[in-house]
């Protein structure tokens, strides 16, 4: 029994294709899911019991069902209504649905954490709710959104492995193919684990950069303060 890297030399294009699709599906689900999440969060915060109920229902259903079941319901449910779509598209939408419930809660919590007076002072001066959100609330919550959203995005990216069960040729699916051809599961899955790790590390790094950039906008505010300036530079020198 020995580790045989030759297998990886032969099959790396297949694994690379899978990794590329995993990345594409994850990014698409992130964008789609975040857009839906923001919409659901705003609906949840609309005055009145009905919007809150609808948004709560959406979040509770998607959060309380295992992702693989959500995936199967969507994948086998759509043909039931006469809709036939490629597995990759269905898988991406299911992944986005799954993530959107969590993104919605992240956005909702960030908005609620902001003092109510911020929104109210914008409304009292005559801004519409949309303008108050855009000009006053959104710029202040951006930074708080990054860390929890990163966590969720990493979870969602790893959960995309489940798409292999509906024949989406992403990384896990390809690894199963390679494993079936070579009968060398350890080599294949060790390689796949490293590839997942790399993708996750890339997402985490992107998030760090985003946080720094969003943070820079807010830190600019702090650095205008002479006292804060002195303290921050002291800290910087010490470290």
């Amino acid at each position, binding site marked *: 029994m020995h580790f045989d890297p030759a297998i990886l030399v032969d099959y790396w294009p297949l694994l690379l294709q899978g990794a590329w699709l995993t990345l594409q599906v994850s990014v698409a689900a992130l964008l789609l899911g975040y857009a839906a999440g923001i919409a659901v969060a705003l609906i949840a915060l609309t005055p009145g019991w009905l919007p809150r109920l609808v948004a709560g229902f959406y979040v509770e259903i998607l959060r309380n069902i295992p992702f693989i079941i959500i995936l199967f319901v969507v994948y086998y449910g759509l043909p039931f209504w006469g809709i036939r779509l490629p597995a990759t598209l269905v898988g991406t939408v299911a992944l986005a649905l799954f993530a959107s419930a969590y993104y919605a809660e992240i956005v909702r919590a960030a908005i609620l954490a902001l003092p109510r007076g911020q929104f*109210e*002072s914008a*409304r009292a001066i*005559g801004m519409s709710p949309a*303008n108050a959100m855009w000009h006053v609330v959104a710029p202040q919550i951006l930074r708080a959104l990054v860390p929890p959203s990163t966590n969720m995005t990493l979870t969602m990216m790893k959960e995309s492995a489940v798409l292999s069960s509906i024949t989406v040729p992403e990384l896990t699916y390809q690894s199963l193919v390679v494993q079936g051809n070579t009968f060398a599961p350890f080599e294949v899955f060790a390689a796949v684990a490293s590839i997942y790790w790399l993708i996750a590390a890339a997402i985490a790094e992107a998030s760090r950069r985003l946080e720094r950039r969003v943070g820079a*906008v807010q830190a600019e*505010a702090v650095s*205008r303060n002479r006292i*804060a300036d002195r303290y921050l530079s002291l800290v910087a020198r010490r470290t």
Partner: protein
Amino acid sequence: MSAVPVLRVSNLTKRFHGVTTLDQVYLDVHAGQIVALIGPSGCGKSTLLRCLTWLEQPDDGFIEVAGKPLGRELMPGGVVRRHSRRQIDALRPQVGIVFQQFHLWPHMTALENVVRPQTVVLGRSRDEATRRGAELLMRLGLADRMDRHPHALSGGQKQRVAIARALAMDPALMLFDEPTSALDPELVGEVLAVLRTLADIGMTMLVVTHEIGFAASLADRIAFMDRGRILEEGPARDILAAPKEPRLQSFLDLVRTDHRIVRTTANPTE
């Protein structure tokens, strides 16, 4: 005195979960007047201000700002018509409010706090809004603070930015919620001076306060509120010198006694 008051409140009623916070409030404020609204805490003063900006929707009654109904109006035939959100938002700049905690927007500079609502709400050009904002901040003594963010300003400076932000909308009426309470006691004189300059340019003001001395030295008229009702309203001097309402008498006694106690404990040599 002009015929149409800048603010006319009639029969305003607000209940929270069955508790009546505002109980048939009537109040007129005429152009150029400063009216101080006094009363024990929890009497509904702040709720009244929140209703006047429609941050709370009153359950009953009417508000008119410079003759225009806010929120709902009585149509011929006795039908009450509720206004749309757009109609309410359109009238809101007419009522400037300075909150107790100011609620400046911390991600914008002082100047931007004053400029942004003008461009967004009134559709002014950036140049025009900047000119107007700079002029107001200058007049309020903040010429060298315009590029600062709120956290780099003192309490008094923040308050003046909040005042400038409301004034830039060219309001018919300014509301102040406890303008002295979030500041150090020695700044009360400064707040008084700022509000007096506003009075000099003819601004109409309704000021909620629990400081009788502040009300006495500022207001033309005083309205006394207790348990959601305005019990007595009249010229400041008359109200303070000869209160008719027993609850106002005991409130004034209480407040004045409190002041004496504070003074004697603070300066034992006196």
